[in-house]
């Protein structure tokens, strides 16, 4: 068994986006290292470099002090590294036993899978979590039929089934209940005594302090702090996670008229429920820029898509007192809603079509039959220049634009319809700093013009800089509402992580 693994100065780029610029991690046999960081700080990327799923672009991995290169998950596995994947690496159609032993099935003399041995060994593994299963979980149950927590446990058992020396737990506790977490932590303690090393990636502060020996904090793809967990407290950790430099400083106070006159309520949502959204209620005033925060994947995307009529949902939605129930985005568009989706290349744009086609796509109806093409072109050009769109021409394909300019096209196509309610799903993701600043000015202007804006962002700085009020979502619910005095970085992060003193509840 190996004794130590260190990752030094790891660099990983996806296309033009730098996910890791300088990642470091040291782990020794017999200890638990917590890998901590805010959204998009590079935690998952760093663990994927260590387990061979992605190949690093720079820096090096050392196993027991010797340089090592993992070209595939197989290579890392052979070096005794197991991973519990956040997205789960289970094949839904296969059974629990087949999934756990995939590629390592015990074979008989004829090279056939020894089903009895597989079953027996699976039962041994399942016994580790005995008593925490709600359904009658059997080695032969198809994984498809299991609830999320049991799938997660199978993923954990699969990782430890080949007796690795290093286990990476990537958000492994997110879907477990407290009893299952308790059992997992007992197992982690046994593994430590057996000389295994554990990398624990989690957002839950309480768990980190319960189980970890050491910590390593990532911020913006860079390791900014590491040490013994007993030398640090929750507050200091959160401070490490927060960015110090800010591109937003200049905006504060500028577009934000603090003593804003109370305007009428425009959008009112009561008990909205959909997949991943569990009963959300809130009100937005006319001309308000309401922020939605929280960790990624806490239901923000589904909330916005429900409001746009894109996914089935229940609950009451009112606009200026009129009850609405959208069954199709078309209904929402007619009422003046617009959605800037989270994945602009897939959902927001016809990527290979021209800028003109994209801008006019939601508005063709306005230009009549026969089409008034030159009139339409003129309006598209006006929208383009008002957004300061940097392009070679309206006929160029959207794919020729930079990320920031492509996002301007997404916003522009909706602005041409003069929407009343703007739903924004992380619009500044993958957008350069200069364009971000333009967006902030645009959003501030739109809200001053009386538009109602719902703005989800994974960048906490933006929420604090732009919004008067931020709803923090956690596990499909609104965990807390921060405004005025309570709208601080510390409170926002604390509420995102589910820490109890996250501002006004």
């Amino acid at each position, binding site marked *: 068994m190996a004794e130590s693994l260190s990752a030094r100065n790891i660099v990983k780029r996806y296309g033009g986006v730098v996910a890791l610029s300088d990642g470091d991690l040291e782990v020794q046999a017999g200890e638990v290292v917590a890998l901590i960081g805010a959204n998009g700080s590079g935690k998952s990327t760093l663990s994927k470099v260590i387990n061979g799923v992605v190949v690093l672009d720079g820096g090096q991995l050392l196993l027991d002090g010797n340089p090592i290169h993992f070209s595939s*998950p197989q290579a890392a596995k052979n070096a005794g590294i197991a991973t519990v994947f956040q997205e789960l690496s289970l094949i839904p159609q296969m059974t629990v036993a087949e999934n756990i032993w995939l590629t390592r099935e015990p074979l008989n003399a004829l090279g056939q*899978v020894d089903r009895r041995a597989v079953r027996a060994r699976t039962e041994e593994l399942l016994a580790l979590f005995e008593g925490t299963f709600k359904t009658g979980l059997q080695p032969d149950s198809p994984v498809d039929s299991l609830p999320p927590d049991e799938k997660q446990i199978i993923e954990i058992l699969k990782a430890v089934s080949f007796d690795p020396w290093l286990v990476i737990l990537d958000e492994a506790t997110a879907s477990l209940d407290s009893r299952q977490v308790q059992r997992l932590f007992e197992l982690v303690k046994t593994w430590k005594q057996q000389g295994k090393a554990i990398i624990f990636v989690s957002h839950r502060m309480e768990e980190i302090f319960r189980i970890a020996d050491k910590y390593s904090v990532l911020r913006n793809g860079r390791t900014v702090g590491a040490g013994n967990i007993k030398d640090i407290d929750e507050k200091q950790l959160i401070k490490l996670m927060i960015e110090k430099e800010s591109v937003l400083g200049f905006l504060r106070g500028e577009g934000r008229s603090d003593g804003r006159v109370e305007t009428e309520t425009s959008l009112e949502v009561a008990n909205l429920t959909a997949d991943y959204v569990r009963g959300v209620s809130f009100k937005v005033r006319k001309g308000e820029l309401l922020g939605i925060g929280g960790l990624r994947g806490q239901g923000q995307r589904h909330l916005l898509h429900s409001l746009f009529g894109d996914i089935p949902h229940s609950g009451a939605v009112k606009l200026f007192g009129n009850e609405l129930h959208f069954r199709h985005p078309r209904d929402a568009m007619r009422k003046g809603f617009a959605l800037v989706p989270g994945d602009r290349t897939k959902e927001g744009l016809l990527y290979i079509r021209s800028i003109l086609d994209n801008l006019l796509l939601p508005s063709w109806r306005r230009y009549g039959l026969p089409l008034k093409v030159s009139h339409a072109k003129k309006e598209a050009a006006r929208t383009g220049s008002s957004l300061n769109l940097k392009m070679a021409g309206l006929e160029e394909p959207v794919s020729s634009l930079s990320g920031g300019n492509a996002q301007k096209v997404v916003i522009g196509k909706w602005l041409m319809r003069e929407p009343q309610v703007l739903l924004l799903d992380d619009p500044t993701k993958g957008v350069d700093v200069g364009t971000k600043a333009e967006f902030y000015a645009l959003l501030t202007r739109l809200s001053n013009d009386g538009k109602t804006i719902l703005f989800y962002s994974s960048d906490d700085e933006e929420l604090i800089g732009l919004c008067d009020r931020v709803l923090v979502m956690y596990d499909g619910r609104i965990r807390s509402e921060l405004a005025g005095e309570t709208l601080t970085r510390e409170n926002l992060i604390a509420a995102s992580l589910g820490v109890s003193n996250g501002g006004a509840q």
Partner: protein
Amino acid sequence: MRQSRWEALTARQPALFALVLLVLSLIVNLILQPNMFAKDTLNSNMRVFLPIILMAVGQAIVILAGGIDISVGGIVSIVNTVLATRVGLEGSSGEMWQVVFISLLIGVLAGAINGFFIAYLRLQPIITTYATSFLYAGLALLILPNPGGGIPGSIAALYRNSTPFSLPLAFYVIAILLFIWLYVSSTRYGKFLLAVGGKAEAAYETAVPVTAVQFSTYVISGFTAALAGIAITMLSGSGNADIGNSMTLNSITAVVIGGNALSGGVGGVVGPVMGAITLGIIQNIISFASIDTWWETLFKATIIVMALAAPGIVNLFRRRRV
């Protein structure tokens, strides 16, 4: 998601639906043709079904691993034209077996070309094999522009009339195929097929050799298509570059009737073999009931369209209910 009892049952035994359909079609056929289980009638039916059965086995394995092979008909045509031109009506049996061996190599090579494009260059299976199907069909036309040529009558008779222990030759071939499949499906490779077809990304993260598995399925499909080409040449005794054309749709239909999901990861080979037999019987029924033959294509196409649309229709109703 709650499953109905039938859904749960067919999830565990995907071939069950194929068995029900097979028995039903057998009953109807028996009513129309009471002597169908007589030795000669049975043999003359089975020797016609065998080429599609062979093709369906390879197609099933490709579909199981999440792909599809539309070029199998083209491979059958190449093999048929090669045999008909290289052996000839006056050829010796020594020459015949030599060319049979070459034909199998051709099948493997054609499959390897598909596999290389799809597994290593990551191209879309349906588009790649659609393109190569024209390549292979075009080669067949180049080899034999007009129907003609053939193989010696004595060798054709060997295929047509062999009934060891009073059972059609096809039964022995099917038994061997199923035996091989039962073995393969119990090995690691069998699990890999399901894993790759089920969720290729998760299989990769679990260190399953995804690319090699995908590649291998097309090679197997090329090989069984070549076997089908040999069988149909021995059945017809002559060469025709168009012979494989209509067989591609049949092989896919057989797999769908056999209970394999077109999206991959569910099913096996036993169901598709039953599916291929069912298709043959349906063909029989249509000719006995003197129904126009175009009904047959319509029927097969309807089955595929329904199989493709079923998950979408279920989702549509689920959406409406909310």
